[in-house]
């Protein structure tokens, strides 16, 4: 597959067309029907949660949030392959992969609701917290990959970054370190066309992003990121390759962020409706549904009750989350160090004295 889809020739791995019709049966992964329906449901769940997050934010019940809508196939494919022993090193726009790794809805609400407790992901092993400084997490992935080799473990690291991140120095240092160390890392670039407002053509003059793998001596694949089958095929091939000790792989997943960069962003400033329409036609959920319907595994009319049921579950969880214990002074200090330095404890005590004084004034 790596040879056939040589990024230097700018070929893109694609299995189905915009309507879900299989156009490259030779590379279509064999996934049992029931599992495929399950993947579809997970994508629908991630989208429902994502859209509700935006709506909670609009209602003033949530802080800044980066919508995922339009990019669900990438996370769904990674999520289906990742095992407990594999690592997820996220950026921040891969909600479906978080859920697959074991993040609970409560974690998602807490994190984007402004509480660090959300990034602990207590039920999810081998899952780093989201990383906001672009591409800086990729060198962590290289280090984890080193440790996997060092301890002779059977694990693979899934590290995620956006198209803008490929311009950062850490992207290049991470790829190079991982390659030199033959670290089992799959670098997934979600090329969603824009780094906030800046289009990919202003990031690079390379013919694609996957081609950046060539200089580091690792395989690279440009993949239709809105095509679940293509993403699954690319990631499972990369997974086996990395697992067998061959080193890292770079995947460029071509997609489109249908929503805003975050809830504070206004995409109308930098892209056209025409462009949005074009990508709406390539929507990953629509495409997988097209396939499932053609195979009689799903009916269009099955969508509505499913989404309604998800909405109810999410609403219920969200209401529960809203009564999560209030942020305490202790929460500010507790985790800065393993052993809290006396000096830092003094700062806490000074604030407590103020609180006591304030209380006594009432």
């Amino acid at each position, binding site marked *: 597959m790596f040879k056939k889809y040589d990024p230097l020739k700018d070929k893109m791995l694609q299995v189905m067309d915009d309507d879900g019709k299989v156009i490259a049966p030779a590379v279509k992964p064999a996934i049992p029907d029931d599992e495929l329906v399950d993947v579809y449901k997970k994508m629908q769940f991630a989208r429902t949660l994502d859209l509700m997050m935006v709506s909670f934010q609009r209602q003033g019940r949530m802080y800044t949030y980066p919508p995922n809508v339009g990019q669900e196939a990438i996370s769904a494919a990674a999520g289906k392959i990742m095992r407990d022993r594999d690592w997820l090193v996220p950026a921040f726009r891969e909600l479906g992969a978080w859920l697959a790794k074991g993040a609970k809805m409560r974690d998602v609400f807490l994190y984007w609701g402004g509480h660090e407790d959300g990034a*602990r992901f207590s039920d999810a092993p081998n899952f780093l917290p989201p990383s906001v400084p672009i591409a800086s997490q990729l060198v962590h992935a290289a280090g984890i990959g080193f440790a996997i080799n060092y301890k002779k473990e059977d694990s693979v690291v899934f590290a995620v970054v956006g198209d803008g991140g490929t311009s950062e120095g850490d992207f290049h240092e991470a790829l190079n370190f991982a390659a030199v160390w033959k670290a089992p890392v799959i670098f997934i670039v979600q090329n969603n066309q824009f780094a906030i407002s800046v289009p990919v053509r202003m990031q690079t003059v390379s013919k694609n992003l996957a081609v950046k793998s060539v200089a580091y001596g690792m395989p690279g694949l440009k993949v239709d990121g809105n095509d679940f089958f293509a993403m699954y095929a690319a990631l499972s091939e990369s997974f086996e390759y990395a697992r067998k000790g061959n080193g890292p792989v770079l995947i460029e997943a071509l997609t489109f962020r249908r929503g805003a960069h975050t809830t504070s962003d206004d995409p109308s400033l930098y892209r056209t409706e025409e462009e949005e329409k074009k990508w709406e036609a390539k929507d990953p959920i629509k495409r997988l549904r097209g396939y499932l319907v053609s195979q009689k595994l799903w009916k269009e009319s099955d969508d509505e009750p499913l989404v309604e049921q998800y909405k109810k579950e999410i609403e219920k969880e969200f209401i529960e989350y809203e009564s999560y214990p209030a942020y305490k002074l202790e929460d500010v200090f507790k985790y800065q160090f393993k*052993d809290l330095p006396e000096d830092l404890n003094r700062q806490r005590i000074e604030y407590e004295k103020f609180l006591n004084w304030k209380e006594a004034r009432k």
Partner: protein
Amino acid sequence: MKVVNMVQSINDAIDIKLGDDPNVVVYGEDVGVEGGVFRVTQGLQKKYSERRVFDTPLAESGIMGSAVGMCAAGLRPVVEMQFSGFSYPAVNQLISHVSRMRNRSRGKYGTPLVVRMPYGGGIKALEHHSESPEAIFGHIQGLKVVIPSTPYDAKGLMIASIESDDPVIFLEPKRIYRAIKQEVPEEKFSIPIGKGKHLSEGGDITVISYGAMIRDVQRAMVMAKEAGISVELIDLRTIYPIDREIIRESVKKTGRVLIVTEAPTSFGPGAELVTIVTEEAFLSLEAPPTRLSGFDTAPPLPKGEHLYFHTPERIFYEIKKLIDY
């Protein structure tokens, strides 16, 4: 007991920890085959194999950032920045991740990492080989910053640093790497991070310093003694967290304090120490707490070096000014 210099005692400490903890790995630029440009890691690759002591591509952010991942996966890396002046590409990793991973993950992942860096000037080197950036690291919340001044302390503090579950910036005063030799026990021992040390008891004035400056302060003290001034010298040994108690007790007794650092003056470690002195011993002060720090300039190249780094005479001059205040 063997008589060793600081290069040997740090090497010995790392050797001991490589020996007793299989999760310790040592890496950086030229630390493997060559043993580091100052030879601090000499012989360790041969003894522990390339798997545990190795050279990396020349990229400081990659070195620092990969250590964050290794820590999350259970290793305890000891990495080297070849000179503190070359550490700046890695500062994003330090500020954004090394110092915060524990807090961000609510204790799920820590960063038990030691970052070694030769620092400080006075060795007639090229540009970027002479700075004292300890204030930069001390200002990053979540890091501990250690600076030894003797081979003995260097060994004990290095062992404590590798055993620390929190990240430690270990600044090695390169000017005295080989200048001081002393008896250091061959067995394992550690010195607690965050504790200063009295190097001399005195009644007239407290001098607080650390690293390579200690030796110059001690030379100044000979002049002070001849002038009938009794100096109490405190070696801070740790820049963060600072030992407030040792400062408080001493300044309460002497009423006068001079802080000697190589680092630039503004927003520097001297400013922090003066604040601690005023907070802890305000009513005992008989002269303004004073810092003798570097100029707020780039450290000059070798031909101008003698004007930048404090001589014992300059330190004595400042001591005398405070006594005569």
